[in-house]
């Protein structure tokens, strides 16, 4: 408690930090045509071109019995033979990479390449996206790969905890299903399911093509052509209502083959479109720094295992935004760290904050700026902002939101959001 009060007192003591301004000429350009939104961020100094392709074929397009079909379809596309080899290998050999993420509402393909190979890499991706191989061998290979990825994820305790928590926030039951599905469900899915899912949901309507980096390396019209790969039309989510979990306890517990427990608390949080976005970023930074300082050996300069074992994660890009606090039980006394983390949240909501918060605003700005250094992040953040109905100049809007945050905003936002967490405990199996 002494530490928490000292940290809160720091609000009063901090000196003013310099304001942070975004660079000129970095505003994304948006065009919309035929249901496709195209966002471009040319960067002549970048070593690569990165393209994010978002299609409305995520978790909420699956029925509950089809758990995993969204991932299986995306994986089938990535393994579709092009010029005799799976797409991912063809792209690797052409100087690029392709990966996908299944989000609650979307599937997101991440395609990256050397500038001189960009036309060829996008053409390869387009070939597979336009006509995936739905043969039994390709779908079987995709299923095997997914099952291996699921097994890998199950060893990452933090990921297990996040998956459990996301299922409690989802407004539609299917949107909260595991990203890659479950092995048992995947075993029931075959080529016909994948073909049907693709035919129904891989449509142009609502899709995004967001490019960052060396767009100048592309032949004229390449991105527009890429955006027109899929058939026209729009789709709607499959609505799956399940009764809310009842009961006083808001704890979820899982056991896995891990060495130490993980403790994760999740709070609802504002979206990028909310006036509370800036204050929540500042709060998240404050809590991250406080937890790290508390876990670490006092005064050390270098980042240590201990400081990395605790932290916060503000998932503002999620359709149901949330703030997560986590403690890896491999360090010291996890219960103490976790209860202190929860206490910080509670005290922030109830204690009147006075004095300057400039330093925490500077830290929040710095953290956000650091998160925008990769082309992948730049391309994706522009989509997140546009989807939320904001201008996609994510940098200046976020830095403005942080700059305008007052101590009163922090307290209001802490009171509104940081009161009633859902807690996930991922524990070592008793026999492990």
């Amino acid at each position: 408690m002494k530490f928490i009060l000292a940290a809160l007192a720091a609000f009063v003591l901090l000196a003013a930090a310099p304001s942070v301004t975004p660079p000129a000429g970095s505003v994304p350009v948006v065009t919309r045509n035929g249901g496709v939104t195209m966002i471009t961020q040319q960067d002549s100094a970048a070593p690569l071109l990165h393209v994010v392709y978002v299609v409305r074929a995520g978790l909420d397009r699956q029925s509950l019995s089809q758990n995993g079909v969204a991932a299986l379809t995306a994986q089938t596309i990535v393994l579709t033979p092009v010029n005799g080899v799976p797409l991912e290998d063809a792209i690797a050999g052409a100087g690029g990479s392709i990966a996908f993420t299944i989000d609650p509402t979307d599937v997101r393909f991440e395609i990256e390449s050397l500038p001189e190979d960009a036309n060829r890499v996008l053409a390869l991706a387009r070939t597979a996206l336009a006509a995936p191989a739905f043969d039994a061998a390709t779908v079987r290979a995709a299923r095997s790969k997914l099952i291996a990825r699921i097994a890998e994820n199950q060893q990452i305790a933090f990921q297990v905890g996040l998956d459990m928590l996301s299922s409690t926030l989802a407004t539609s039951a299917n949107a909260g299903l595991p990203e890659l599905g479950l092995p048992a469900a995947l075993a029931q899915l075959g080529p016909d399911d994948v073909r049907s899912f693709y035919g129904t949901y891989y449509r142009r309507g609502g899709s995004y093509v967001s490019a960052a980096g060396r767009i100048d390396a592309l032949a004229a019209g390449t991105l527009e052509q890429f955006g027109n790969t899929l058939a026209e039309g729009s789709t709607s989510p499959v609505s799956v209502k399940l009764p809310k979990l009842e009961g006083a306890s808001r704890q979820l517990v899982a056991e896995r083959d891990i060495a130490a427990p993980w403790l994760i608390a999740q709070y609802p949080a504002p979206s990028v479109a909310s006036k509370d976005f800036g204050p929540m970023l500042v709060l998240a930074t404050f809590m991250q720094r406080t937890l790290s300082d508390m876990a670490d050996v006092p005064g050390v300069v270098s980042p240590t295992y201990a400081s990395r074992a605790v932290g916060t994660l503000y998932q503002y890009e999620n359709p149901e935004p949330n703030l997560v606090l986590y403690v890896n039980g491999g360090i010291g006394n996890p219960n103490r760290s976790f209860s202190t983390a929860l206490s910080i949240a509670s005290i922030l909501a109830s204690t009147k904050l006075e004095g300057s918060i400039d330093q925490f605003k500077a830290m929040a700005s710095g953290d956000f700026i650091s998160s925008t250094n990769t082309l992948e992040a730049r391309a994706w953040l522009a989509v997140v902002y546009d989807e939320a109905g904001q201008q996609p100049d994510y940098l200046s809007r976020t830095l403005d939101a942080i700059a305008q945050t007052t101590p009163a905003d922090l307290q209001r936002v802490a009171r509104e959001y940081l009161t009633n967490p859902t807690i996930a405990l991922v524990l070592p199996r008793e026999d492990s």
Partner: protein
Amino acid sequence: MRRPLLFAAALALMLAPLAASAAGEPSAGPLPHGGNYLIDRDATLASAAVDVWFRAPGAGYDNDSPGISRLAATAAAATTLESGRSLVSLVRSLGGRLTINVYPDLVGVSASVPASAARRVVAAMSAAYFAPAIDEDAFKIADTDVAVLSAQEHYSSDDLLHDALFAQLFAAGPAHYPPIPADVTDVKDITLAQLNAFAKRAFRSSNATFTLAGNVDASLLGAITDGTPGPAESPIGSTVAGTPADRTITAAVSGEGLAWSGPPISDERAATAMDFIADYLFRDQTGLVSKEIDPTSDQYVNGQFITLHDPGVMLVTIGGSKPDAIEAQVLAAIAKLEQPLDPASFAAAREAFLYHLASDTQTPIEQADNLGWYYAEGNGNYAPSQNESTYWKTARSLDPQFVASVVKKYLAHPVVVHLITATSKESAS
């Protein structure tokens, strides 16, 4: 006079091909008070990486103070400056991250900060290192820091194997000693006076290279007020062991490591071929050997070619419960590469390698680190983060026959280190 003049002329020659002013192109030149700088600019970013690099022996100038370089670099960052703040506290207050990287022959200090704060960081970094005045408080902080890092390393098989393999490969010189001593009592013998003497010599401005990346320009360097012109250290070499012996070490974690002495940084074609081999065989997810390992098992393999002044080192570390099986896979894959790959496979692997190069050096901090490392090792024009550097031309020119010849020349006989735990030792006996 002759030496500084010659030095300046040599520096100008070395840097001339890098001098350019267009966005994304590096620029280079001398610092205001000794030393030099390299810049890789991207004006569309909001962040900046500010690095300073020194050629400095990790165990001291007579190799009898293991850890002194790490201790001095950390203490200088923790020393309260005239502004009332230390470098590390300034960087943190600006929402940035400070990283201190100490190698047997180099020290690199990296700050990633918002671009609008870069000038303040350049000023503080140069004050902290070009005019070091380490006091007792900073000394204690650095001492604790080294103790924590040392304790952590006891549980990192990669770090333990790296240090042990270097100790076997190099009979003498900085590379024989770990940058962070396994036994911190070594560090306890270092006095504050010794630390300041080391810092004043190692961190003098004339021995420094500032590397800036992101939304930066040369005007930031006007913030440097400290320093004294003079000659830089030459790249620091170590003595290679004639016939390095294998070794078994009892440790807190198990693992296995293999190392081969490779080409120097000046042999650009062979060094690039070694990078290609490491990428082709060992890169996470895509490497031939890496892909053969079950991702849900406890096995893993890491492999990289460490580009050094002379010689470089190919280093492979293996973890998990069956390191012998992985070692056999590693050696078989290397032996197979003694025969040239077919042209189509090679072309695809080379294109993938080029992409990985660009992907691994796309952020400002990666670019500044990359520039600093290659310059400090003695070949700044060869830094892969610059796609106009000699590295890229060399990489594009690789062919299957040359790669096979490099495998035959350098990767025949590794030195091997086994880490075993006390438990496995008992069960084996």
